[in-house]
């Protein structure tokens, strides 16, 4: 236990009193640390002087498990469990990495289905992020409205692969199942249904006066700091940096669709405040709906399992593939020693990197703002700790 600094403060009557800073332990069991994050706050009254995040409460040895698998395909369920709110995006990254290692070209239809799934998953993930952010600020109702719509996406996933949270759907070289009959119509219906709902969220939460007061000018992350910390995803774009891997380092077939990466513009306060980060997510949902709609219209017929290799034994070598998950740049570094199981799998977690800016941007704010800041970074502890 370190000694806390004490200071002499003058009271209004001129007397000098000794005041002490207090260490406040926020989490791992706390309603708004989004899982099992522990924040050690050094507070002076309500003002936060320093924040020290402690992680590791959800460490599940993903990387070691991956080494001990007998097969590259068997790693996929573990990858699912990293970012359990966006499991499809996780699968996508890992599968692309191993495919690059093997030099496989997957059929057109697989590419389209993967993009549709990844973008639907991005919407579902952003719905959780925005909904729980409302909860953090104290608005209960938008959370349930967003979950109502997320439910429809999960229904689509369930229709395709039977699972609602952890899918194991994208396999190396293909997919576990083809789309079920009727999926395309249902997905188109969803897109039609979902667009007006975004306006509903904006009316309920985004442009609520109290919500703006709580989030604008809070936790401002300047663009240079964001870049210095290697932030990515909505956190980076919220700071006004127009960088999206889907456009700037294109993978799969993203270059075929028309869409715009969204950046924070500081409409309600400074660029890079909590409101900007939140709003980038809301706007990205609309862009993802655009991508899904275009992909649904262009999707060709074909096989989805034909390119799945019987035996996966890549030549010795290593590969790093980065993709844009719902939370930022998820990278997989896969090393092969020529055997049937990976020699090393390293996940580059966007949440871990984004979380590391928390001390930088929350000093001097109040305790209630820490909740707002942590929520706006949208961390999933499964991915932070792996």
């Amino acid at each position, binding site marked *: 236990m370190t000694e806390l600094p004490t200071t002499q403060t003058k009271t209004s009557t001129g007397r000098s009193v000794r005041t002490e800073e207090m260490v406040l332990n926020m989490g791992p069991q706390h309603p708004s640390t989004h899982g099992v994050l522990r924040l050690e706050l050094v507070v002076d009254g309500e003002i936060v002087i320093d924040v020290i995040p402690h992680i590791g409460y959800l460490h599940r040895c993903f990387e070691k498990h991956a080494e001990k698998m007998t097969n590259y395909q068997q790693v996929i369920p573990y990858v699912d469990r990293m970012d359990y709110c966006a499991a499809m995006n996780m699968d996508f990254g890992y599968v692309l990495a191993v495919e690059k290692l093997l030099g496989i070209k997957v059929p057109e239809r697989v590419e389209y289905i993967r993009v549709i799934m990844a973008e639907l998953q991005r919407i579902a993930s952003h719905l959780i992020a925005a909904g729980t952010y409302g909860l953090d600020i*104290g608005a209960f109702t938008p959370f349930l*409205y967003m979950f109502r719509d997320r439910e429809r996406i999960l229904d689509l996933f369930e229709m395709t692969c039977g699972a609602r949270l952890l899918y194991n759907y994208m396999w190396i070289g293909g997919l576990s199942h083809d789309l079920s009959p009727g999926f395309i119509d249902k997905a188109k219906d969803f897109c039609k249904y979902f667009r007006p709902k975004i306006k509903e969220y904006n009316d309920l939460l985004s442009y*609520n006066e109290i919500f703006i007061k*709580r989030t604008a000018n809070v936790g401002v992350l300047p663009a240079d700091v964001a870049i210095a910390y290697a932030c990515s995803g909505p956190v980076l774009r919220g700071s006004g940096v127009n960088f999206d891997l889907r456009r700037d380092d294109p993978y799969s077939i993203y270059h075929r669709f028309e869409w715009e990466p969204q950046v924070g513009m500081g409409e309600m306060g400074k660029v890079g405040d909590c409101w900007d980060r939140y709003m980038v997510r809301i706007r990205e949902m609309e862009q993802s709906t655009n991508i899904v709609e275009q992909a649904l219209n262009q999707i060709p017929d074909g096989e989805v399992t034909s390119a799945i290799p019987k035996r996966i034994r890549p030549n010795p070598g290593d590969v790093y593939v980065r993709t844009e998950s719902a939370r930022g740049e998820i990278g997989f570094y896969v090393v092969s020693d020529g055997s049937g199981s990976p020699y090393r799998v390293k996940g580059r977690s966007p949440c871990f990197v984004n979380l590391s800016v928390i001390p930088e941007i929350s000093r001097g704010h*109040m305790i*209630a*703002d820490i*909740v707002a800041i942590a929520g706006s970074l949208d961390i999933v502890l499964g991915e932070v700790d792996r």
Partner: protein
Amino acid sequence: MEQLLRNILDHDIFVYGVMAIVPLVWIIPYALVVIYLERKVSAHMQDRLGPMRTGGWHGWAQTIADMLKLLQKEDIIPSAADRKLHTLAPYLMFIGAYTVYAVIPFSSSYVGSNINIGLFYIIAVSSITVVAILMAGWSSNNKWSLFGAMRSVAQIVSYEIPTVLAILAVVMIAGTLNLQEINQMQTGWFWNWFIFKKFPFIFVAFVIYFVASLAETNRTPFDIPEAESELVAGYITEYSGMKFAMFMLAEFVNMFAVSAIAATIFFGGWNSPFGGFLSGPIWGVFWFLTKGMFFVFIQMWLRWTLPRLRVDQLMYVSWKVLTPWAFACIIGVGLWMML
């Protein structure tokens, strides 16, 4: 009613005993209904169904089941807590909430105590809850509880000022602090209610009173002392079982108390809105409870719609928005009366 009881019971102590217990006859069923209602209102606003199973029809017995569960729960006092204060706090909280009912006129023939300083008494005793909250927060020996208690005290003390100033505007036109007399002045059709007098000053005073009363009962958007996502549960973090239930009961009792005061001083209390139509002591109870429950519903509506303010913004609203406007109301009413 007092005379009637005197004739039946012919002893003052019995009479006062009955008079004191009558509000409880309302509060206990009210709490059961309103907790159920809060669940149902929130559920329907959030596109859910709420409790549907317990008791059969639309889960009507949910609150009763919850109460039985709370009764059976172990009463946990943290080993580091101050036992005496920790045990005393929930009861003091309830007392603070319940004593307000002594002067609230439920009907033209029933008011617990028809004293001539009713409004002043309400303002005075409702501050007891501050002490209870501070006791609860301090004795729990938990930093989160302490934060909740400190915030709560600051909040309730600051919001008392706009509340009092808003009430003062009404007192100026009524010329009395006695709630029963204030009600009698508003007899007749609904345009006799004080809310429509000296328009728009009293109306603004009502809005100020209502906003401030939300803060005094710790309801959203001012539920900062028990802000779930920040302070876990604020000063009730370390309470369980019946003590927790007492805090919850006090909150709901307070909700109705502030609504009842709003109904009494701004909306005619037990007066029928339609002159002589459906008026009288029995209908008076009906009108009074209807008006009170309407404001309780509005409080729920706000709670499930709005986010929460931050603690400094809360103070800003009190000192820089509500208080000056309340002063403006008083000056407006005063000038009107002079001219």
